[in-house]
């Protein structure tokens, strides 16, 4: 089980690729972002993006799936308090394959909850041409492997 102590600043890992299909783009859009450029090839052709593209939030959700399978599986993940920033860098289209590149930017024990640590990650999703399509900086909470010694507990 991967715990807080197993994340070191500077660690880099890569996961994927995840294939993107037109059916998935339209399915996500139908449920959560029903705009023409995410729903319909013909309408998308006439839009500024020039063809069917994934909703930005769908890109974020595909990132979550890669992150959950690659980083969080068999971990002590306690979820996330929030995300500092998401930047959409290029459109994601049917046929793209998305690879997650993730780097540990920081790791610190929680001040208020001694059994927990906070890990700050920078993620990039890159497409099949190695072009970044999204960047995210987010913090996740993990249980610590051992209860900290008394003198380690922050006030």
């Amino acid at each position: 089980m991967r715990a807080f102590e197993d994340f070191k600043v500077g660690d880099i890992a890569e996961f994927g690729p995840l294939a993107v299909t037109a059916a998935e783009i339209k399915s996500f859009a139908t449920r959560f972002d029903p705009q023409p450029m995410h729903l319909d090839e013909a309408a998308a052709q006439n839009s500024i993006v020039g063809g069917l593209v994934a909703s930005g939030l769908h890109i974020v959700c595909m990132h979550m799936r890669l992150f959950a399978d690659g980083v969080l599986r068999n971990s002590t993940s306690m979820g996330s308090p929030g995300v500092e920033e998401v930047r959409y860098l290029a459109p994601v289209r049917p046929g793209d394959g998305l690879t997650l590149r993730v780097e540990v930017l920081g790791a610190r024990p929680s001040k208020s909850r001694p059994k927990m640590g906070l890990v700050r990650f920078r993620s990039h999703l890159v497409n099949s041409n190695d072009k970044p399509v999204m960047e995210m900086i987010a913090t996740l909470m993990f249980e610590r492997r051992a209860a900290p010694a008394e003198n380690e507990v922050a006030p």
Partner: protein
Amino acid sequence: MTFFEDLRVGTRTEVGHHTFVADEIKAFAREFDPQPFHLDEVAAARSHFGALCASGWHTAAVCLRHIVEDRQHRQAELRRRGEPVAKTGPSPGLRDLRWPTPVYAGDTIAFAQEIVELRPVANRPDVGLRIARNTGTNQHGELVYSVLSSTFIERRVKSE
């Protein structure tokens, strides 16, 4: 209405509410966020959350749907009246996203959008950037979701 020039900082729009039921929480999690506390009541009860709760991105996605549908209803009304409709999008991104309280199965979340900043865009005289704070609040009045979202909005008149 609703061209960049028509927008005002401080304008708040209630865009709708949604009750998150266990089956949809689990279905979303199987697809996008397969962690035990989003997938299974028993595992969730053992976790620090204490009960099944929605993926934070599920909350974000349902908020997005309400925002898009609210905008589309208002645009349809303008078209019916024969008035021009401003183009919106795409979004360059989001920041300062927080999930301060979990969304548990059975919770009803009210979503709202408030304009916090309007700024010109360099080299884009046809659009302005609208920065809005999108929020979700549960039936106890607790904030469960908050994000700053940026969107390009068409101008009625091109800026100098």
